[in-house]
Structures are given as structure tokens and as C-alpha cells.
């Protein structure tokens, strides 16, 4: 017997519930099926509600990236209502979004990823770590364990910064359509500066060197978990009175060519997902034979694409490297550092004044679609409204792209591609460790994948926006 089915479940230390089934052909992963095992259906919840509920309601899609949904829903409403955004509003919005991204990246690195490489103390919640491939020198290991606990404060400070302006976190209140409901006053700006300086210090003194150390000691992971370098970003950090500018550019990178992304080329496929078309709507079908996930395949121009910090850093020319497990980790840490610097710059550009918000009373349009990058890649919200009520609300999250199951032609999504072909020396000892490292480098958020339910009509192909 040379082939063996193994279920890696639960894949812990991530947001949401994930299982990955692999078929081992001797010591090589010959098949990998990534299963997002939760379905909630916020798009159904949005139907029939007042359109202005979208900002607060869609934040409830995801706890670790709540503001991402609030931001994209706000951009969507800005377009429907044709709002004008002031510079102050845009700086405040980007400061808040950035704070949530920093929170996300720091927690991902220390809470989720670090125990893949560092031997943690034998006490809850670290018992049973079973890390057979721990390579750090004892004193380095001890130091990084201490940094795990330091990151508790740094990541909390990110959410405190967000809350100074946003009222609470997760699920902030002030970043809404038309601007921001909170005034940038000297006391708040000063508090925020103090917090970001502390976070910046942490990132510079701990996160970046810790990333360097791990990438040096585990440098074989520059060859493990590679994807075909098809990268996609819709750009990040919106500016301009109509959200029309992106500070970091978007792009479609494939075969070493970069082009501008076009929303109309996105398509979906539910061949291996637990959904079936019913009366022109795609509904969850948990008993569907052969399917293995609640995450749908999403493609650009018919091809799977990887997204996230690595895609953004490469497309913007900030990172020059490959598309492996360790490249993803390095690019995320680099991005974290760059964002702390941006927040300091934006805070200094705020001009004290009243809350920068102007909301018009009635929407001028009945449809809108927005895609922009947030923590894990590009987030798309689209809506159709009638009399201010939602007729249809669609969400496509980065998890849908990175954790796409196989489509009708058997094309692998980025995570499954990265896993397939991996050589596992002595699977009994190292299988979970190696698979876990590859999977977590994509920063899985299965809560985000738990909603997508799209589309009238053509379930095999194009989305009609």
C-alpha cells in the first residue's frame, strides 16, 4: 500500500474552522483538499435590510479583519450616495484600517505562526505542541517565547489606536459612509501617535528581527509551499474625494507581466463546494456528494490567483523574492513595518477640525461594486438596492481566492497548489508541522470564507455585477 488518506484536522491557530485532507503517495502529498467547514451566510442576512446597515452588519463577517468589511461597505455606500470625502476623512479612515491590519499581522505572526517554529512552554494553551522540527538555539528560542508575550501588548495597542477614533474594536463605529464621525483633535492625535510609536518600536525591534531569524534558520521554506507566482491585488489604502486613488497600486501579475486588474474578469465555480443552484440562486448543500468545502473557487480571467501581503509587496516593487512559505511570512512582516511608518505620517497630516463626515440622505445609484485590498488580499462587496433596501449583496473575500477548492477543470487554488507535491520526510513525525507551516503562511481566515453565496444565473461562470 503506497497511498494513504490523512485528515489534518482541526488546523488550529487561525481564524475559523479548517480541515485539510491529503493523500500521501509514500512521502509526497499527491492530493490536498482544503475544507472550510463553516457556513453563515451574511449575504442572506443583508437581503431586505436598509442599505446603511451594511457597514456594521458586514463587519460581523469576520472578527480579525472586521474593519476591512466596514471599510469596503463604506466605499460601496460612498459610491451609491455619491459622497465627497475630505482629506481628513481619508487620513482617519486609513489610520483606522491600518491599525486593524497591524493588529492582524502581529497576532498572526506571534499567536498563530510562531508556534510552528518555536518550542513553546509546556503549559496550556501550548501543551501537545509536538514540534519535532524545532531548530532554534535554546537562547533564541527562549527570547522568541518572551516576544510572544510582548506581542500581546503591541497588538492590543493597535486596537486601542483604532478605538481612540473608532469607538470600539472589533466592529468599530465611526468609519461609516460619508466619512468619519469622530473629530481629529490634538488629544486624540497625540494619543494615537504615542500608541503607533510604541507599535512601530515593537515591529522594528522584535517582529522584523524575529522574522529574519526564523527565515534564516528555516531557509528550506523558501523552497517549500511555492505557488505559480500568479498574483493579484486591487490596490490598498484609498484616497481622493471619491476613493478613486490607491496609495499602493493594484495589479495582475502573471508570467512576469503586470497589468491593471478588471473586476469584470472575476468568476466563480462551485464544483467542489457544498453549494447547488436552486431556482437561479446558489444555496448551501451540505450533503452534496464529492464536495469538500464551504469555500467557493474564485478566478481571474479563468485562472486561480494568490493574494495578500506578498502579492502587494511584489506588485509594488517593495519585495523581491519568490512565492514560497517563507516569502509570504517575510513579505507580511515587511508590510507591517511599512504600515507603521505610514500611520505615523498620516497622523501628522491630520488637521484639527470637526468630524469629517457628510452623509447625503438618498442614494443616487442602485448598484455598486468595490474591490480593494485589506489584510489578506482583495475584498469585494457588491450590492443592488431598490428604495434603499438591499436586493442582493455579494461578498468575495481573500480566503475565497487563496483557499479555492479545485474547479470543474481540476485547477488547484493557491493553498492546494502550495501543498501538492510537498515531500514529507517521515510523515508520522512531520506531516502536521510541515502542512501547518505552509497553510498558515497564507493567514487563513475561514470566518471570512463562510459567507459567499452568490449570484443569480450562471453558476459555472461569470458574475453579473
Amino acid at each position, binding site marked *: 500500500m503506497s497511498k494513504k488518506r490523512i485528515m489534518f484536522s482541526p488546523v*488550529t*491557530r487561525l481564524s475559523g474552522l479548517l480541515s485539510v485532507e491529503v493523500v500521501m503517495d509514500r512521502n509526497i502529498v499527491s492530493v490536498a483538499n482544503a475544507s472550510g467547514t463553516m457556513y453563515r451566510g451574511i449575504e442572506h442576512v443583508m437581503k431586505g435590510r436598509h442599505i446603511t446597515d451594511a457597514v456594521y452588519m458586514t463587519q460581523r463577517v469576520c472578527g480579525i479583519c472586521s474593519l476591512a468589511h466596514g471599510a469596503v461597505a463604506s466605499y460601496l455606500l460612498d459610491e451609491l450616495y455619491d459622497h465627497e470625502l475630505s482629506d481628513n476623512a481619508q487620513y482617519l479612515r486609513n489610520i483606522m484600517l491600518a491599525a486593524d491590519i497591524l493588529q492582524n499581522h502581529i497576532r498572526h505572526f506571534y499567536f498563530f505562526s510562531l508556534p510552528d517554529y518555536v518550542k513553546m512552554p509546556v503549559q496550556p494553551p501550548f501543551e501537545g505542541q509536538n514540534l519535532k522540527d524545532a531548530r532554534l538555539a535554546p537562547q533564541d528560542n527562549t527570547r522568541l517565547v518572551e516576544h510572544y508575550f510582548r506581542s500581546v501588548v503591541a497588538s492590543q495597542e493597535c486596537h486601542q489606536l483604532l478605538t481612540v*477614533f473608532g469607538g470600539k474594536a472589533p466592529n468599530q463605529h465611526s468609519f461609516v459612509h460619508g466619512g468619519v464621525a469622530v473629530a481629529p483633535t490634538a488629544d486624540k492625535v497625540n494619543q494615537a501617535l504615542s500608541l503607533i510609536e510604541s507599535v512601530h518600536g515593537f515591529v522594528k525591534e522584535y517582529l522584523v528581527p524575529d522574522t529574519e531569524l526564523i527565515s534564516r534558520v528555516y531557509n528550506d521554506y523558501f523552497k517549500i509551499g511555492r505557488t505559480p507566482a500568479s498574483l493579484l491585488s486591487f490596490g490598498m489604502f484609498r484616497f481622493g474625494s471619491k476613493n478613486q486613488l490607491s496609495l499602493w497600486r493594484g495589479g495582475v501579475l502573471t508570467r512576469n507581466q503586470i497589468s491593471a486588474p478588471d473586476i469584470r474578469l472575476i468568476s466563480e465555480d462551485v464544483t467542489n463546494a457544498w453549494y447547488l443552484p436552486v431556482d437561479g440562486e446558489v444555496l448551501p448543500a451540505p450533503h452534496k456528494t464529492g464536495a469538500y468545502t464551504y469555500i467557493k473557487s474564485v478566478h481571474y480571467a479563468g485562472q486561480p490567483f494568490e493574494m495578500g501581503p506578498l502579492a502587494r509587496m511584489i506588485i509594488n516593487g517593495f519585495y523581491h523574492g519568490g512565492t514560497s512559505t517563507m516569502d509570504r511570512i517575510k513579505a507580511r512582516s515587511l508590510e507591517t513595518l511599512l504600515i507603521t511608518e505610514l500611520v505615523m505620517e498620516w497622523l501628522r497630516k491630520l488637521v484639527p477640525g470637526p468630524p469629517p463626515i457628510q452623509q447625503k440622505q438618498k442614494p443616487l445609484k442602485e448598484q455598486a461594486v468595490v474591490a480593494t485590498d485589506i489584510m489578506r488580499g482583495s475584498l469585494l462587496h457588491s450590492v443592488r438596492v431598490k428604495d434603499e433596501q438591499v436586493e442582493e449583496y455579494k461578498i468575495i473575500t481573500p480566503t475565497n481566492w487563496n483557499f479555492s477548492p479545485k474547479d470543474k477543470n481540476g485547477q488547484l487554488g493557491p493553498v492546494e497548489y502550495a501543498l501538492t507535491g510537498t515531500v514529507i520526510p517521515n510523515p508520522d513525525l512531520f506531516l502536521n508541522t510541515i502542512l501547518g507551516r505552509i497553510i498558515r503562511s497564507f493567514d487563513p481566515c475561514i470566518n471570512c470564507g463562510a459567507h459567499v453565496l452568490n449570484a443569480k444565473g450562471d453558476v459555472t461562470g461569470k458574475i453579473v455585477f
Partner: protein
Amino acid sequence: MKKEDFVKRCQELAVGPQFNLSEYVISEAKKHRGSKFRKLPVIWLETSDSGDNNIAFMNTTYPYLGQVFTDLIDLLYSNTFMAAQGKDALNILEYAAARLRGKFTLVVEGAVPLKDNGLYTIIARTEDRNLTALEAVMWLGPLAEYVVAVGTCASFGGVSAARPNITGSVGVRNVLNREVINVSGCPINPDWFVGTLAHLLMYGKPELDSFGRPALFYGFTVHRHCQRRSYFDQGQFAEKLGDIECMFSQGCVGPKTGADCPYRQWINHVNWPVKANTPCIGCTNEDFPDGSSPFFTPLPEKNMEEEQSNSPAPEGEKDE
């Protein structure tokens, strides 16, 4: 223990590969000071949720998360934090449930889908079966000393059970025939949750309100303690978000929401939604979000759609 023995033991552990010196020192020190407190053993299940409550938990200050792990709880199983993965994680869950039967606290984060045998939320899979949230909660609930529902989804169904609730999701209280301590909020203020755990550890079960929530945190309405109450009393209402007057006109449901946000505030106690010039949307309420929606419509004019949202009753839901 004699001083010499203690020093010798520390010296041995300091060079050991397991990094358990501090664990040893702390537990010995606690014995020495004669503390009556042990740590609370906790099994934390994530079910149908957004994960915002585990993120909110990470935001706790005084104690910070590291101190919570060191001094307050033994977090034995947690999809979010545990270093173990795959079958190692499931083995820990089974072992902890058996070894600490009647002694552990079960924390459930998220609602429990009932439709299609609960297949909308699968906690873990093996080669031949799925462990659904429904099965896991029904298995562990009766074995726990306390059951704590963290967040509004776990407490009452929340956003996971919002209209039209196509997964037939319910709160934990609807699937267990026992008392559930509801720490509601979307998400929870970390003080409410960590404070509840501390209460369980130090003084036992806290006094609960009629919704099964610790009265300590939920006993008064937001409206009663709101800094903007004087505006309400004088009939001065905000004309738009961003104004400094009472947010009742902007949809605030503070008058029907039990929570101490006005004086507790969020994330190291720096701010809360009304202070940020926006309405309270009543995220701790039994009828959240449907009873608060549309969020920006004044309370008397909100569509009272609870009747719609509660029907049809999800299959298998037991009577309260």
C-alpha cells in the same frame, strides 16, 4: 519545602529542555502564599461565529492575555490559541473532557446551527466522520462545571441566527438542558468575559439577570448611565452622526440595552460608540441584530421584525 530543595529544583529545571521553570516557580510561590485560588480549567469551542470574541479576548488589559494564561485560566483546548494541531488537538480535547469531568468550564464562542444535522459548522473531521458544533456542545455541555456562552451568537443566536437564519442557528441555551452563563456582546468587552471567568474562579457563579447574564455588567441600561443623558432629558437630539447631542434620533437603542459601556468603555477603557458620535446598536441584546435594524432609524420607528425573524422555529429547537 526547604529552601535548599527549592533552589536545587530550580537549578535542575533551568537547564531542562521543557522551559517549565517559571511554571514551577509560580506554582510553588502560590502554595507558599497560601492562595486558595487554583486556575480555572477552560475548554473553548469555536462554533458559528466571526471570531470577534477571541480577538476581543486578546484585547484584555489588567490582566493582559499573558497574565490570563499564567494566573487565571488553563486554556486546555482552543482552536485559536493552542499549539497542538490535528489529531493531537483532538486528543487533548478528549483527554481534558474525561480527566476534568465536572471541573472544567466550557466556553462556547458562536451559535449552534441545527439544520441539516448541524453540518453548517464542523469543529473537526476525521477520515470517516465530522464532529459538528451541535455534537460537540451536546457532548461537552453536560460534563462541564460551568458553561459560558461568549458573545451574542453563543448567548442568543445573534448575527449567525439573524433573519432569515437559513442555517437554523440558535444560542447554546437552546441545545443544553442546563444553566448557561451568557456573556453577550458583539463582540464582548474583554472585561465582561475575563471578569466573569475571575468571578467563577474566586467567588463561584455570579448573580445572573433574566437573560442569564452576569448582572454585574448587564444590570443597567446604556441609557441610564449615558454621558449624553442630559441631552435626552432636555430633548436635544443629534441631527447627524458626528454631532454631540443625544443619539436617540440616529437610531440609538441604549434605552433597551443592558450593558455598562458608558462608564466601562472599550480597549483599555478609552472610548465607546456614543462617545464616537454614533448610536449604540444594542449588540448585547437577545434580539440583536434584528431588533436593532435598521441601525440608524430611531427606536420607535424601527421595523419590529422580530416576529418574522423568529419564524420558522428551527427544527429541533426545544422550548425555553
